[in-house]
């Protein structure tokens, strides 16, 4: 008898929330990206758990796609960071506030 799905789901929720918290409190853009990855992982964990709970393979397939998306996102995101870094040597999100109001 394995651990009930609810525990996984709550764990995933906690992970998701921690990821969101990290995004809100961290200034380093790269760490913010990582926090997004945390959130995606939480979603993945949820998918897999549901896949087990419902006995449905669909959840696992979705995780597969989420992984691809995450990869593509990271590539582009890091590309943007690199492009910006050429102009200013800072990866702090708080330094980017020329556009406002």
């Amino acid at each position, binding site marked *: 008898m394995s651990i009930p799905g609810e525990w996984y789901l709550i764990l995933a929720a906690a992970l998701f929330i921690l990821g969101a918290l990290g995004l809100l409190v961290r200034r380093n853009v790269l760490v913010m990206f990582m926090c997004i990855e945390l959130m995606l992982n939480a979603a993945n964990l949820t998918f897999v758990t549901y896949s087990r709970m419902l006995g449905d*393979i669909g959840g696992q397939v979705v995780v597969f796609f989420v992984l691809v998306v995450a990869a593509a996102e990271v590539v582009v995101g890091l590309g943007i960071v690199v492009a910006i870094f050429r102009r200013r040597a800072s990866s702090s999100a708080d330094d980017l506030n020329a556009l406002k109001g």
Partner: protein
Amino acid sequence: MSAPMLAATVPDSLTFAISAAVILAGALGVITSRNAVHAALSLVMTLFGVAVLFIEQQASFLAAVQIIVYAGAIVVLFLFVIMFLGVDRRENVAEEPLRGQRPLAVLLVAVAMGGVIALGVSAHWATGAHAVAGSTTAGHHSNVYVLGKAVFTTYLFAFEATAALLVIAVVGAVVLAKRPRSGESRGEEPAGPEEPAVDGSSADDEGPGGPPALVGGGASVTGAADHGGAG
């Protein structure tokens, strides 16, 4: 809630408990470590924990992909950029320049946590129909087989559509990493080895199959899919 927990076997319980601890610790590490490199390593911890839980839930293929793509490729890319940019300096985590940001964030998190727990206590978590897209264990096939079949039937179109994402990733990386032609920017000197793999190999690599060179995991993904399809 506690009763089912007790009903679980000890190894399962232990595995879950340890993995959960690892996952949360890793997550906390990401959001608290001053050094971006440490954060990336913490992220690996979490990813690993998640992979364990995937296995624990009979999603062994995804666990493998998780390790290879995430830990193996994405985090490496992170580290690569961190090192390349030289921004592995410490960030003063204790200080928050934006007024009200942190208290509000923590408050929201607390509330959300409370909501989740309340939801967990009161509601049914999984109310959905069972095995809509196909059973996880259809005909006692392996996880990979079942997964592969789902990918090429129910999710065929989604699978094909991911090709577009990879095209974007390729082109995006090329565009963004391209050095400004007329130089008012910092990088006046000849281009350093900025992601040469991207620049070099992707330009002539096209097609829905996606370029394997971009992400380490990309090859695995396509490879696995090809494999399933062939089978």
